[in-house]
Every structure is written in structure tokens, then in C-alpha cells.
């Protein structure tokens, strides 16, 4: 029997290690509230946004390469679960009021699409240049587990994709011409 090459778990060179907190569950999950307006006044306290890794960025490290070996799947670090994810599109940016008007589509559950306003404070410095009409972003509300404690957190991340290449644009032009050549008008009623 020919088995397909597996694509479920990566082979690790041993450099990814795991943390294994035992999660103690809170007595009650905080309720999720649909987002319509996110502004400075609704931001939770700042330390909820710190990523654990940012505390240890500047530790000295020794480069070391070990031969590849089959990794224990448990070595993959993971410490969150989404409560809701919206895919948002920027409709308009009001730099004066420092907000962006957005359309939000929930990715979990059957929640109607809606529009809202998001304070530009929520956009990270590295994403500020991406804030333009038509830009897509993801707003994730998630439950974050760190060293046994659970917190609700939010993250807003803009979509980044490569730019159209000259080759692709050329192909699009050709395809568009071909499509157009097939379009025929229907008769009309008076």
C-alpha cells in the first residue's frame, strides 16, 4: 500500500520546545459581546496585550543546530483559542478623528455582517501604512492561557499579501480580453 507523504506534523530540528501549563479553568467564561465600536475608552488595561515573548526578546542565545528528528507533536506551542474572529474591510479612514470605518464579517457562527468604527490606536505601528480603503484585517477575540491564568484578549492584524507581479498583470489582461470576446448581448423588450 502506497502511503501518502504525511503533512500533519512537522519534523523539527529540536529547536522548538514546549511549555506545558496545566490549565485551571475559571469558574465562568466572560461573555462575548459583538463589536460595534472599539475606541480608546473601551480598551482593556494595557498589560493584557503584552505577549509573553516580548519579555524575553533580548536574552543572549547560542546558535545550535541539531539533526532533524521526528518531533513530539506536543512540542508545538499553543496557548489560545478564539472566541470570535471577524474579517474586516476598511471602508473609510478618518485621520482627523483617528478612526476607521469598517465592515465586519464574523467567522464563527451565523452573525450578520455589520459596520462599525475602530480607533486607529488599535492598529500596530507596523500596520499603520496598510490602513486604506479596501484593506482587509482580522480582529480576533480570544481566550489566552499563560502560566495557568486565562484572560480574554484581542488582536487586530492586517492582511499582508504580495503585490501583483508584471507577469500576473499581463496574464490578467489576456484573460480579460478572452472573457470579453465571449460576452453577447441579449435581445431587449420594448
Amino acid at each position, binding site marked *: 500500500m502506497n502511503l501518502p507523504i504525511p503533512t500533519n506534523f512537522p519534523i523539527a530540528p529540536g529547536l522548538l520546545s514546549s511549555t506545558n501549563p496545566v490549565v485551571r479553568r475559571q469558574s465562568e467564561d466572560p461573555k462575548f459581546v459583538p463589536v460595534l465600536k472599539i475606541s480608546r475608552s473601551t480598551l482593556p488595561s494595557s498589560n493584557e496585550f503584552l505577549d509573553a515573548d516580548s519579555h524575553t526578546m533580548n536574552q543572549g542565545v547560542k546558535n545550535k543546530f541539531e539533526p532533524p528528528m521526528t518531533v513530539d507533536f506536543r512540542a508545538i506551542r499553543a496557548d489560545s483559542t478564539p472566541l470570535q474572529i471577524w474579517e474586516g*474591510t476598511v471602508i473609510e479612514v478618518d485621520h482627523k478623528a483617528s478612526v476607521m470605518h469598517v*465592515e465586519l464579517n464574523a467567522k464563527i457562527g451565523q452573525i450578520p*455582517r455589520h459596520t462599525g468604527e475602530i480607533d486607529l490606536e488599535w492598529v500596530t505601528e507596523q500596520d499603520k501604512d496598510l490602513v486604506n*480603503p*479596501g*484593506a*482587509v484585517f482580522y480582529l480576533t477575540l480570544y481566550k489566552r492561557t499563560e502560566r495557568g491564568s486565562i484572560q480574554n484578549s484581542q488582536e487586530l492584524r492586517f*492582511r*499582508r*499579501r*504580495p*503585490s*501583483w507581479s*508584471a507577469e*500576473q*498583470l499581463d*496574464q*490578467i*489582461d489576456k*484573460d*480579460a*480580453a*478572452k*472573457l*470579453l470576446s*465571449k*460576452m*453577447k*448581448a*441579449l*435581445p*431587449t*423588450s420594448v
Partner: protein
Amino acid sequence: MIDYGAPPADNEIEVTLFGPGYGEAIAVHLGEGNWMLVDSCIDPESKASASGTYLEKIGVDPKQVRSIIATHWHDDHVRGISQLASKHPTAEFSISAVFNDREATAFLAAHSGASSSGLSRGAKELFEVIQGRVNVFAALNRSIVLEATLNGHQVKVTALSPVKAAFAQSIARMAQYMARKDRPINSAPELHPNLEAVTLHIDLGGDAILLGADRGRPRYLWLVSRGCRSMVVG
């Protein structure tokens, strides 16, 4: 196990709605075994087009489908439409006349997956249909999509939209998401209100049906008039 039942009788008009929501696909029996399909959705179990499966199960010959219309390009209304079009190669295929335009076809081509990774399933489906056909028909306000004498009545399917006044606005909106040098490859969001969607009026010679998708709420407005009586479903 779904009991699809028997096909409609020759003198029976039948409108069947399919979909996870409010009728993402419709099959209309116009009479005497003549069918029209509007949009498409996929049965999540079989992964086949829901309306295509329905017609197959009730024993409709593929040639009996006279017309397939894609009212607009959004994913939720055209999933499986390329499959449907392949199943019914003799049916006339119509889409919004907004796409009878160089920039609009470029928009479709850019988001279809033919020249980049697929950014819109809907665009991909329409692109594949158009590519695979000799001709595709452009429907706008007052276009006659289908005309026939059935059961002694003049049956006429006319498009009521898009109107020409909406073309420029639709194309201007698509232009925001067209492929350009130095512009990141991004999906095109499904903009609302949908100005390019095709609304259909089916005149059955006495009765009439109005089918509209994505024209605001409800998603499908189905007005069946028998004298003064009418019904709205959606």
C-alpha cells in the same frame, strides 16, 4: 435520505429554493419540461450542485434546462455553477451585463485564481464557466433572458436589473480592488448594496414571479401574483 419526489407535471409551475440560507439557488419549471436555473449552491455532503442533483433525481434530461443565470458573482450564490454549466451545456448562460466591460472582466480574471491564488470562489466559478463556453449572455434591465410558448401561454423571463445607471458605480467600486502594479493582492469584498445583481421577472401569462438576490433584505423576494394575491418569501 431525501425524497425528491416526482417531477412537476407539464402544466405545473414549480419554483424550488435550495441553500443553507434563504435560497442561494433556485430551479424554476416553466412548463412542459422547460427549466431555468438561477444561481447555485453546493450540497455540503455530496459536494455537488444542489439544484443539479435535484434535477437529476427527478429524472430531468440535461437538455431540458434552457437557461442558467448567475445573478451576481458572490461566493454564496455561485458555488458549483461551473459544475451546473458543464452538466447542461446546451443551456444559455447569462450573467450581469456589468461584466460586458474590459475592467469588469479584468476584475473577474484577477480574482479567479487563473493568474494568482484563488481569491474569490465566486469569481473562479464564473471565470471557469465563461472560459468553457462559446458565448455567455449579458443581462441588464429589459434583457429578454428566455421566451417561449408553453402550455398555450407566452412565457417570458426578463431582467429588471442591473440598470445602466448602476454600471459606472459598480465598475468604479470594482476598480478599487482591481489588480494594479504595487497593489497587494487582496480579496475583493462583497460590496453592498449589490448594484450589479440581476433581478428576474418571470411572466407566465397570468401569474408572475419576481426573483431578486442580494438586493437588501430579504435575500430573495418572491412575489407570486394571482390576480391580487401575492406572497413574499425570504
